[in-house]
């Protein structure tokens, strides 16, 4: 006879049976929500102002920011148009953009990379090389909590 599960074990069992698609949904929904929140801050826009631009109610925008709303691709496209910024990338697109920008000269790379890296989720760890094509250092950065941007470590030559 099967052992009767305790309430605590039932809770564990219930949560462990969450479908994988739910994980992806929340991951995307939360990422997009945070992206919108950061863009509103960056452009100094209120929820009311963005609602007016989109022809939506403020409560609708509040739902969008909740992190569990099922945004349509049309709504995402409208936001991308307003902010002139792409929200969704395929893996190859992201890789291509990132790699292209890596090759720009160091003085420009901070600015250029900032734009790309800031499109990644806050908290992401990003690894890239700094320097010229022939002489560079590898470095790791973590996107900062406040800005969604990153701090670039100074270029230092490795000891021979």
């Amino acid at each position, binding site marked *: 006879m099967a052992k009767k599960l*305790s*309430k*605590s074990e*039932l*809770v564990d069992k*219930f*949560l462990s049976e*969450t*479908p994988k698609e*739910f*994980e992806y*949904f*929340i*991951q995307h929904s*939360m*990422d997009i*929500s*945070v992206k919108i*929140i950061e863009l509103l801050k960056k452009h100094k826009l209120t*929820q009311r102002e963005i609602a007016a631009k989109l022809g939506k109610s403020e409560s609708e925008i*509040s*739902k969008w*920011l*909740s*992190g*569990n709303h099922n945004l349509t691709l049309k709504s995402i496209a409208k936001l991308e148009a307003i902010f002139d910024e792409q929200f969704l990338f395929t893996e190859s697109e992201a890789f291509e953009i990132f790699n292209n920008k890596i090759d720009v000269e160091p003085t420009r790379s901070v600015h250029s990379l900032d734009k790309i890296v800031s499109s990644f*989720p*806050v*908290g992401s760890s990003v690894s890239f090389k700094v320097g010229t094509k022939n002489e560079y250092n590898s470095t790791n950065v973590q996107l900062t*909590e406040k800005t969604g941007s990153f701090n670039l470590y100074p270029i230092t030559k490795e000891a021979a």
Partner: protein
Amino acid sequence: MKFSIVPVYLGKRSKIYTIRIENSELDEYRRFVYDNSSVVPNAVRLLDLQLKNIANKNGIYDEQFIRESPPGKNVFRITETNEWLRLYCIKYSRVALVLGGGSIKKPDKQKLKENPELQMVVDFLIKIEDVIFEAMQNNETRLTDDGFEGKLNFELVE
């Protein structure tokens, strides 16, 4: 009533705790999951994933919470899903959450006061916040980037 705050998800982005009342079989968050899982299973699962995401990936954003307590207190609800499932918490800036309970808000009862079960959860959390606040004032309990430290067992005098 004696209670302690116990971890739920201690992630790199934020720390999520809940309340465990002495001698109760389940802590408040697990009781919330247990009570609502048969009614709105998908909403409960999505909410749980949202908490994991807040702890491990994106952190706490004010925009994803709605204040339910008077100004000066920090009881919020995590914005509800389409199924009106509400979970309440004490929010400590962008550092930590202490989860309480919650349940489904009746769609035809717009105000919190019209949902006495939910109002009770909010009132309870306000009292819990006061007790924790006092311990923090006395430096018995501290909140750092690593979460709560020091005294984690408390007593709420009714």
